[in-house]
């Protein structure tokens, strides 16, 4: 009995606090909700509802205009068992992601390291290297189609100076994906900016101490720089992985009538999905494809998060 007494006493102020929240707290609540209202409307109206709709739609033969009958797992079954283009487009996309993510990450880290040196005119170099990532959209792809032109394009002209006969980048199915991946390298400036910021926040005394201990430049990079910028690398890898799976425009713009190029070598997952949805109105199937992609990306991201514990170093400990 006696033991319970203080507990009850401790509960009392809590209970009492309730009425004290009163009008002010409630109007604060309300104000808070009103402030986040735009986001709530956006989330519920144009994210969650369509998301749930597409989940349901993926179990139907929905064609936008005439039918939406429940057909169970038929779309998924068809996808895995009898759509050769599903596998083709998935493998194209995975190939693209597997090359594009590491290459752009390494590319932007190296670029950031170079641009972190103290050299006269560095600001100008930084601007120049960042510039391409400001441009986006279809115009850039047209520009690259000219650059990659097998006989008059700048890329093959440069290669010819060192005695290499460049391939027909966009018409030879062996070279189309490397061409697109190569093209992606031109926009590493965006990632570079993040790394540059992160590099500049590495405390100089760490390098100083290492130098006193006789650590070589390579070791300083391996044991100081890399761990210190690892959170940014992690962020970059995760976002470009997700972005990589959404590759669409490259295949749509750079191939003849958006068909996916020679031997479907640029038929990316989203392009195949788009064709299913909007050229043959197989919307239910396209929705099912979207969910499969969602699951694939989610698993990979979860895996990334799990693996990140082994190599990502957070200065303030795990947060």
């Amino acid at each position, binding site marked *: 009995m006696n033991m319970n007494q203080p507990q009850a006493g401790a509960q009392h102020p809590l209970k009492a606090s309730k009425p004290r929240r009163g009008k002010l707290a409630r109007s604060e609540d309300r104000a808070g909700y009103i402030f986040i209202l735009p986001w709530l*409307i956006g989330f*519920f109206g144009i994210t969650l509802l369509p998301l749930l709709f597409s989940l349901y739609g993926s179990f139907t033969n929905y*064609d936008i205009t*005439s039918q939406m009958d429940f057909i169970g797992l038929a779309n998924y079954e068809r996808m895995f068992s009898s759509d050769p*283009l599903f596998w083709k487009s998935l493998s194209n996309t995975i190939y693209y992601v597997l090359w594009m993510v590491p290459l752009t990450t390494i590319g932007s880290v190296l670029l950031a390291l170079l641009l972190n040196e103290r050299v006269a005119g560095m600001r100008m170099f930084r601007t120049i290297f960042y510039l391409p990532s400001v441009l986006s959209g279809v115009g850039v792809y047209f520009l690259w189609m000219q650059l990659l032109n*097998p006989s008059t394009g700048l890329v093959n002209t440069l290669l010819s100076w060192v005695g290499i006969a460049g391939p027909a980048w966009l018409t030879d199915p062996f070279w189309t994906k490397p061409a697109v991946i190569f093209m992606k390298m031109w926009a590493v400036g965006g990632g570079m900016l993040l790394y540059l910021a992160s590099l500049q926040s590495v405390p100089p005394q760490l390098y100083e101490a290492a130098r006193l201990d006789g650590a070589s430049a390579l070791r300083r990079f391996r044991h100081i720089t890399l761990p210190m910028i690892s959170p940014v690398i992690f962020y970059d890898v995760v976002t470009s992985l997700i972005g990589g799976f959404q590759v669409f425009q490259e295949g749509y713009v750079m191939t003849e009538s958006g068909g996916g190029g*020679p031997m479907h070598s640029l038929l990316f997952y989203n392009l195949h999905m788009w064709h299913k949805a909007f050229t043959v109105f197989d919307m239910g199937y396209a929705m099912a494809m979207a969910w499969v992609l969602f699951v694939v990306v989610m698993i990979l991201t979860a895996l990334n998060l799990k693996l990140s514990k082994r190599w990502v170093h957070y200065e303030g400990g795990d947060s």
Partner: protein
Amino acid sequence: MQIHKHTKTLLIPVLLFGLAATGCTPKQAESSTASADGKVEIDFWTFWGSETRRPIIEKIINDFNASQDKIIVKHTYLPWGDIWTKNLASIAAKNPADVIINDIASVDQRASKKQNTELTAYLEQDNIQDRFYESLWDNVLYEDKAYAIPFNTDTRMLYYNKKAFREAGLDPEKPPATWAELEEYAIKLDKKNGNVYDQVGFHPLWGDFGIDNWLLNADGGKGFFDNDNNMYINTPAKVEAVNWIKSWNDRLGKKNVDAMQAEFGSEQSNPFISGKVAMWIHQGTFATQIRDYGKDMEVGVAPIPEKTEGSGHYSGGGGFVAEIPYGAKHPDEAWEFIKYLTDYDAQKYWAVKNFDNVANKEAASDPELLSDPIYKAAVENLEVTTHFRAPIAVPDFKNLITPQIDSALLGNITAEEALAKAETDVKSMIQQAGK
């Protein structure tokens, strides 16, 4: 209590959303009423926004508006490609255009998906069916009912550079008639400078003909499917055609072919007009590009060469129709406009200004038009022109055929293997769709 309060707050966005949704309704209702002077306004969607085409279609619309006092047609231009997705979305939202120009090859596809309006009742009222070429009319039917009205069509012919013919010692009045002759002439027309070609006589996949059309040309005018959905993918004639196309790559060098092709442009940088290629297959309207950009060219036209003598100069064609999207607000007025659009005057005007094959037979064979030899050839070529159509169950079947043929052309597999594989894939697709 706590949870309850949250749910209440969460209701706000839902309610607001509802408000926004109902707020849209009066606006919609407004647009569907007649305008102040009692005229009904209808919305007409086309993708004709170019400098050449826009004034032509707008002149036709203005003529129609002036010709009567009940209907006003408003022209909405939407870019090619965009127009189909917007049409689809507007049909789904139950607020579509009243008339739209759409692809002739997939009228039945859209009919099966309730995207366009059945026109039987209107046709009983005014029977305009006899205005049009029979082959075009076939393409607007779904289960024997019409869902669209043909507007224009096209066909592909062989254009050849007479000057180049003379230079190569060929008779400029005797174009190649068979595949063998085509190849023989092409070799004579090739001009090689070291490793680079200054002029190539011909390549089957340049221009506007494409693999599908060659396979059709080889196979007695049969595409991959006929109108009864019989499949003709892996046929001996088609296998031969793939091998024949590959032989051009082998002779000219795939690298040269790719390199040249990547540079092709249109208008003055079109390789036929700029003299890089001596024979070129294109639609009838290509003549206007030659007229405008190839000032001193001497050009002849001929039907597509046939595989062997007597196998037929088959060509492929497409075209567009006018149709009423499903759920359009003013179908009666839309019908009146479609009738005008496909009648003699409008069709002749379109043909004269655009040099385009029109669907109306009488307008197409107008003496004024036929006085032009190229136009005349294009009209005559319609006789041997097949219009592609895809089975409703597998509208995208060609996606399974092209990569196999690509692979055969690259020499990865034989033509037989390619077409056999394509046929198996398409069969399995049909089976799956039938489930």
